[in-house]
């Protein structure tokens, strides 16, 4: 229901826009391997997403060890014992390090989180390496369509909370304009306390051992309340910094440049 009003400018497109034509094609051919994009990697097995990683968000190891679910030694033991066999997830559960349900919850959260960043619009061509799999091993595979739908829904969610994406990537700082008059929920307060003008959303996520998308949501709420602002590196000419819907689903028809190049090469070789 949330996708209906998304594209008023595109008549007759009741289908969701495709985030990555390459990913779509790989799902259709039930491919196994790693899709490497500018801001992250999606691991596929039989055309389903089994894992995702992005430098923008903490990995499952950070998420599990920060809260104390798993001690660092437990993590490294699992990697040492089961990494080569690519069954680290299974090993963590079987050896009693992490309860099965907790691993699924944490892994799914990390997967959708990393996929959100990995599928961000980019001009850099994606690459796919067939046959590559991740050492975490099978936990709970997710259909490509679900990941694309969720990524689009998340972009809209952020935009609905506060339409300015400035806080997503720049260092954030508490604004002094509003002293603590309005109560800030505990989870947002933890984020607010780390907004020191140096840390970015990703840094805060890493420090709290929390999903970076969750931090983006909190930062947009805090920005909407006037409690944080992005630190702008150099003041750009006024025309260049027009806020608003800059990087939103309209851009999603990323031309899959790698594919186009391969097509062109193939045609030239005829």
């Amino acid at each position: 229901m949330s996708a209906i009003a998304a594209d008023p400018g595109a008549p007759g497109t009741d289908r969701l826009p495709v985030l990555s034509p390459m990913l779509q094609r790989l799902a259709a051919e039930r491919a196994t391997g790693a899709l490497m994009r500018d801001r992250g990697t999606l691991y596929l097995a039989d055309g389903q997403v089994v894992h995702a990683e992005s430098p923008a968000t903490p990995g499952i190891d950070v998420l599990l060890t920060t809260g104390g679910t798993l001690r660092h030694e437990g993590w490294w033991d699992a990697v040492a014992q089961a990494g080569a066999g690519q069954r680290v997830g299974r090993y963590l559960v079987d050896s009693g390090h992490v309860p099965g349900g907790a691993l699924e919850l944490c892994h799914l959260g990390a997967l959708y989180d990393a996929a959100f960043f990995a599928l961000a619009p980019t001009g850099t061509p994606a690459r796919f390496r067939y046959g590559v799999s991740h050492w975490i091993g099978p936990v709970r595979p997710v259909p490509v369509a679900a990941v694309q739908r969720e990524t689009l829904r998340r972009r809209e969610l952020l935009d609905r909370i506060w339409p300015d994406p400035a806080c997503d990537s720049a260092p954030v700082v508490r604004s002094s304009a509003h002293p603590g008059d309005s109560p800030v929920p505990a989870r947002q307060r933890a984020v607010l306390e780390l907004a020191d003008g140096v840390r970015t959303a990703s840094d805060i996520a890493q420090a709290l051992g929390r999903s970076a998308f969750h931090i983006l949501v909190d930062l947009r709420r805090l920005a909407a309340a006037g409690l944080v602002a992005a630190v702008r590196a150099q003041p750009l000419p006024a025309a260049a910094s027009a806020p608003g819907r800059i990087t939103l689903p309209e851009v999603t028809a990323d031309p899959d440049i790698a594919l186009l190049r391969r097509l062109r090469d193939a045609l030239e070789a005829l």
Partner: protein
Amino acid sequence: MPGIDECLLEVMRLPGARGASVVDWTSGLALGTIGESPNGDHEATAAETAEVARMTAEQPAFAHLAAGSAAAPAEAAAGAPSTAVEDVIVTTHDGYHMLRFVETAFDSSVFLHLWLSRSEGNLALARLRLGELAERLVLA
């Protein structure tokens, strides 16, 4: 070792259970679903119930942890329970909706949503059982 699916199957064994899901209330993501959904779309339902769960979890009136807890901010930042709220119950003319917060050792904002038929369901039983299952989901 129970996982999300086993947990949801157990939830559905409650008398009058019509549908259930495991949802992240910060993002509105459905992590697992089973049975029917009130509006025929589990993902939309998850996003809607997540908003209710979030509003409840974040209200200062419900965040009151213990009498005279002046140290609440530090305590909350240390991240013990993510909310003082255990569950939310919404009653409609033909059903009950129960949102049960799941406490995990790692950082998360997860709840279980159970949709119960009002004529067949037993609210007290369902509430107790959902609490047990929410604990078992993240215990070995």
